[in-house]
C-alpha cells in the first residue's frame, strides 16, 4: 500500500503510523459534556466502504487525513491535516 505525503510524495505504507479515524480532528470544546467526550474518545463507526483515517509520516512528521475504502483498499485522497492537499 502506498500513501501520498504532501511533503514527500507517494511513499510505502511502512513509513507511516496509523492513528485512528479522522473524527479525532473534531476535538470537543472545553466545557463539552461527558457524552461528547465519550463519543469522541470511544465511539467509532466501522464502515465497509469509504472511511477517513489519520496517518503520520514518520520521516517528515506530517499528519495526513487519508480517504480510504476498507473493502477495496483503494486510497482516493490524502491531505495534510494542517491544511493543503496531497
Amino acid at each position, binding site marked *: *500500500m502506498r500513501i501520498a505525503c504532501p511533503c514527500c510524495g507517494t511513499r*510505502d505504507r511502512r513509513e507511516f503510523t496509523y492513528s485512528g479515524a479522522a473524527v479525532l480532528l473534531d*476535538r470537543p470544546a472545553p466545557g463539552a459534556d*461527558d457524552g461528547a467526550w465519550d463519543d469522541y474518545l470511544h465511539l467509532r463507526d466501522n464502515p465497509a466502504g469509504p472511511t477517513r483515517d489519520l496517518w503520520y509520516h*514518520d520521516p517528515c512528521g506530517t499528519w495526513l487525513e487519508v480517504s480510504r475504502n476498507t473493502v477495496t483498499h483503494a486510497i482516493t485522497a490524502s491531505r*495534510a*491535516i494542517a491544511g493543503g492537499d496531497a
Partner: protein
Amino acid sequence: MSQSHRIPGKGLIDRQRPVRFTFDGKSFEGFAGDTLASALLANGERLIARSFKYHRPRGVMTAGSEDPSALVEVLEGDQQTPNVRATVQELYGGLRAQSQNRWPSLRHDLLAVNDLMAPFFSAGFYYKTFMWPRAFWEKLYEPAIRRAAGLGSLSGKHDEARYEKAFAFCDVLVIGAGPAGLMAALTAGRAGAEVILAEEDSRLGGRLLGIQPALDDRPAMDWIAQVLEELRALPNVRLMPRTTVTGAYDGGTYGALERVGLHLADPGDLPRECFWRIATRRAILCAGALERPIAHPDNDRPGVMMASGVRSYANRHGVNPGRVVLFSNNDSGLETARALTASGIEVVAYVDPRDIPVTEDFPVYARAQVVGTSGRLGLKSVQIAHRGGTSHVAARTLGLAGGWNPSVHLTCHLNGRPRWSEDLAAFVPGDGAVPGLSVAGAARGVFSTAACLADGVRVARAVLADLDLSAPDVAVPAAEDAPYAISPLWAVDAGGRAWLDFANDVTTKDVILAAQEGFQSVEHMKRYTTQGMAPDQGKNSNVGALAVLADATGQGIAQTGTTTFRPPFVPVSIAALGAGARGHGFAPRRLLTSDARSRAMGAPMIEAGLWYRPSYYPRDGEIGWRAACDREVRTVRTCVGVTEVGTLGKIDVQGPDAGQFLDLLYTNMMSTLKPGRVRYGLMLREDGHVMDDGTCARLGPDHFLITTTTAAAGLVMRHMDFVHQAFCANLNVRFISATEAWAQFAIAGPRARAVLDSLCDLPDLPFMGCTDLRIGGVPGRIFRISFSGEKGYELAVPTRYGAALFDRLLDAAEAIGGCAYGMEALNVLRIEKGFITHAEIHGRVSADDVGMGRMVSAKKDCIGKAASQRPGFTEPGRAQLVGLVPCDLGDSLSAGAHLYNEGAPATRENHQGYVTSVGPSPTLGHWLGLGFVVNGRARIGEVIRLDDGLRDKKVPVRITDPVFFDPEGGRMRG
C-alpha cells in the same frame, strides 16, 4: 550406463559441459542446462520420492514448479533444504541431493505399510480414529502422527546463509516470458515504458522451449534469441529470469522470489535468494497454462507424467522416455503424440475416450481409457480398456493429457474468483479481479501459439493506452493456430484408487467420501480431504477434484465453484522474506556514547527499547548484580556516581508561542516558567490517563527543551505533531527531536559539585536551574535536576564529545571515591525517593492515582483535562500509588505480585492492588516496593499480603508513603 536415456543431438543442454552430482549417495552425470529432474530421468532414474501419506513410490510428474511429487532434500555443507522441487533445481557440479520421507531407504521404505492400511487412512481419518483412550492422544498418538507427518526435514542448525530483499519500480510488469509475455514486453519496451519482464524459469521462452514450434518458418530458439537481443539492448527493459512473481497485493504491488545463487556450485558473495517487492503502474499476467492429469487407477507410479512434461524433457533436455503411452482427451494431447513420434520417440499407444480417426503414425485406441498400471517402483505396463476388450501394453512412460488449466492464480489473490468456461473445460480469470492487472495468452484461455503471440501485443497496446504511451508497430511472427477441442474426462470409473492430489495423497474415493459425509461445499471438501492444501496449492488437482465433487453432489462444475488462491504462488523461504533481519539485523541497536567504556568495564548491558544500557559495573570480587548495585547506591548517597542518561527523548521547542503550546500539552503551566529554570511535568492522553512524565527546561524566552521517557520519545513526538497540526497549526512554534544530538550524564551525590568543579567553571545553580556552559572547550548545558534524590546535575554536550566526557567524569569521580552506576542502582535510588517511571505510569493510571492530582492546573485546558475529570476517575475506590515495606525486614518483594487483605483468599473479588517496582535498599537496609492499592492513601500503616503466585511467595507488607528516604528533599535541594 551413464545417461542411458538421452536422445542424441536434442535439447538445449550443453553436452560440452558435463556435470557430476549425487542422489541418495549415488554419483551421476548430467549436462549444464539440466535440472535435477531431467538429469535423473536421463540416467534412467524414475523413482525419486515417497508420497506423503501412503509412502507410495513416486517420480517426476511435470517439467515445472507445479510438480507435486518430485520433492527432494538438497545438501549444502552441513545444511539441508527440504522439499526442493527437482524440476526447478538447476544442476551444478557437486550438487548433493537425497530423497525424503522414507526409511530406511527410497527403494525399501517400511512406512509403505501405510499403503496397506489405506482403508483406515481415508479422508478425515484423524476425526474418527485415535480417540480412545483419551490419555493416549497426548502421550502416544499425537507424537507418533507428528513424527510420521511432513515430508522433508531440516538440519536443525541456524541458516547463516545470505539472503536479500529488494524493491523495484516500473510502468509495466510482465509476468512470464513465454510467447505472450515476450511480445508484451517487446511492445511495451519499444513504446518506452519502464518494463520488468519476470520469468520463473532459468531461460526465457516459456512453453516455446518445450514445444519449439516453427515461428516465421524459423526454429523457435532463433526467434527467441532475436527477441531477447532486442530486449536486452533496450535500456528501459529489465529482464529478471529465475524470478517467480509470488503474489499480487494492493496498489500494484507484487511480491517476487528470485533464485539468485541456488543454481551455482560456488555462489561466492551472491545471496541464495532475493525477495522482491515490485511496485508497478500496470501488470500483464502471461503465466501460461498448466496441463492437468486424468484420474485413473494407479495413475501415480514413477513414469506417469503430464504429456507436456514428456515432450518438454525430450525437446529441452534430450531425455528419451522409452516406450510411451499417451492418455488424452483433447487435441493438444494428440498433437503431442504426433510431435513425439516425429522426434523419434516410440509412442506405443495413444488412448483417447473420444471417437477420433485411427489414422496416425502410432497405434490409436479411440473410445478407450486407461484403467490401470503396473510396476511398483517404476511403470512397466499400462492397462487399456477399449471396444475390443482390455489390452496390457508394456511401457516405460505414461503421459497424461487431461486438458489445460490457465494459470489464473494471481488474479485470485485479492479475493477474485475465476469463471468456468464450458468450451475450454477450465477456469479463466474473472475480469478486473486485480486492479491494474491484465491477462494475456494461455493464462486467459487462449491456447494456440499464434493466438498467444497476438494476444501479448494486443493486451500490451491496451495497457500502453491506459498509460498514455503510444504503442509502436510490432510484427507478430506466423505460427501454428490449431483449434483446441476437448471432451472432459475427469475420472475413469474402474476399480482401484485413482489419484487426484498427488502431493497430499487424495484420491477420487476421498472426495466422494467427503460428499457422502456431508462435506458437499468445495470449501469443506478441501479441508476434509486436504486436497489442494499441499505446497503446490492443488495446481494440477483442483479442477479434477471439484469435477468429481460436482459429479458426486449432482451439481455442475460452475455451480460447485472453486476455492480461492492465496499468495505465495510457490513456497517462499522465511529466510528470504525476512532477509537481513537475522540476529542483530532484526532491530537497530542504539548505543550510548559510553557504551564501549561500559563494556570494557565489564558491565552487562540490558535492552531499554532499542537502547543498550549498563546494568551495573562489577568490581573485582563482586559476584552477581546485588553486590555491585548495593555498592553503587551507597556511593551515590555518600559520595558521587556518574551515569549516562542520554537515552531519554529530548525535544527542542522554539517560537514566541512555544509556552502556550506546551501549556496545551502539559497538565501544569509551562508558559510561566522562567528562563534558566526546569519544571517537572506530566502529559496526559486525551482519555485522561498519564501518557508520560518528564522535565521541561526553559533555555530562553522562546526556547524550551523537554525530555520524555526513553521508550516514549517517538510517541511523544508524534503526539506533539498531532496536537500542533490538528488543533493549533496557527501557533508560531516549531519543534524537533534532539535526542541523538546531545549526550547527557547524571553526576549525583553529595560530592557531585567537586567532580564538576574539577572539569569546568560551574556556576551556582539553584535546584531546578539550568544554564549553558563550556566544558573542555566545547559548548554544553547543565541542569540541576536529580532522579536519585541526591544533589545532582545533568550535563549535556554534543554527542560526538560524549565518550570523552564520560571518561573525564568517571576519572574525576573515582579520584574522590566515586564510581559509575548502572540501571539497577538507578532504579533502587529512585524507588527510595518514590520517583515514578513507566512501571507506575503504565497507561492505566490517572494523575491523581500517582498522587499528582494537583499538577493538573485548574487554570487552563490541556490534552486529557476533560476526560481526567470524569466520574470514573474521581470517585473513590481507585488504586493509588503507595510504598510497601516487608513486615519481616529480611523478606524480599516481587514486582508484578498482587495484593490482598490479610487472610483473604487470592481471588479476583478480593484483589486490593499490585506491585509495580521493587528493589533492595542498602540505604534503609531492607527491600522496598512501589505499587497501587485501592484507596491506598487512606490506608497508610495497614498490613496487607503480597501474593506472588508465580513463585508461590506470600509476604506480609505494610502500606507506607511512597517516599521512603529524605521526604523533605533536603539532600537534593541543598
